[in-house]
């Protein structure tokens, strides 16, 4: 399946776009989203950390992702 991933902050600079489409096997998890990102863009390894939000919630790496989910890369936050 093809999933769309949105990027903010330094993640947008790393992928040089505000969204990217990833080709993942059915029944993938957040872990596989992260692996794909790091493989395509090794600069993600240089971050202090990065999380993935699915449908506006932080989720575990083992959480499933499916087509149509709003999947967002959350680099280290620095608000406040």
């Amino acid at each position, binding site marked *: 399946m093809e999933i769309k991933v949105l990027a*903010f902050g330094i993640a947008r600079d790393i992928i040089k776009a505000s969204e990217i489409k990833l080709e993942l096997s059915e029944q993938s998890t957040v872990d596989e989203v992260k692996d794909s990102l790091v493989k395509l863009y090794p600069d993600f390894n240089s*971050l*202090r950390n990065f999380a993935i939000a699915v449908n*506006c*919630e932080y989720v575990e790496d083992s959480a499933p992702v499916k087509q149509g989910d709003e999947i967002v890369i959350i680099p280290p*936050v620095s*608000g406040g």
Partner: protein
Amino acid sequence: MAIDIQLKATPLSSDECIKKVQDHHCGGLAVFIGTVRNQTQGRPVDHLEFEAYEPMAVKEMSKIAEQMMDRWNAKHVCIHHRTGHLALGDVAVIIAVSTAHRAEAFASCQYAIDTLKQTVPIWKKEIFEDGEVWVAAHP
């Protein structure tokens, strides 16, 4: 009981936030105001850009407000956060809370800003004359 959460691209008003939580049944009203500082030592910052993943930022700030009510019996909570272009000294965030007793006002307000800085998807970039950097992105 009221919660007021706003992400806005225009200057924040402490007066507005305080008015939203004032209540003569509440003996404690605490406010935290976060001002933009120069975070990168030794390089003069020209300005900053704050970017938010808006729907989730609002949702995470609402969660914080609900926790303030659940854990400290906060009566009214107001959290306003700036986005967009900010200069040094501009106000980036205001958290105002009213509670029956003042100890709860301080404790819940401090919890709110500590948690906001860890969980709310907002990012700031410092822009220098000769470059820019996303704050806190790297180890």
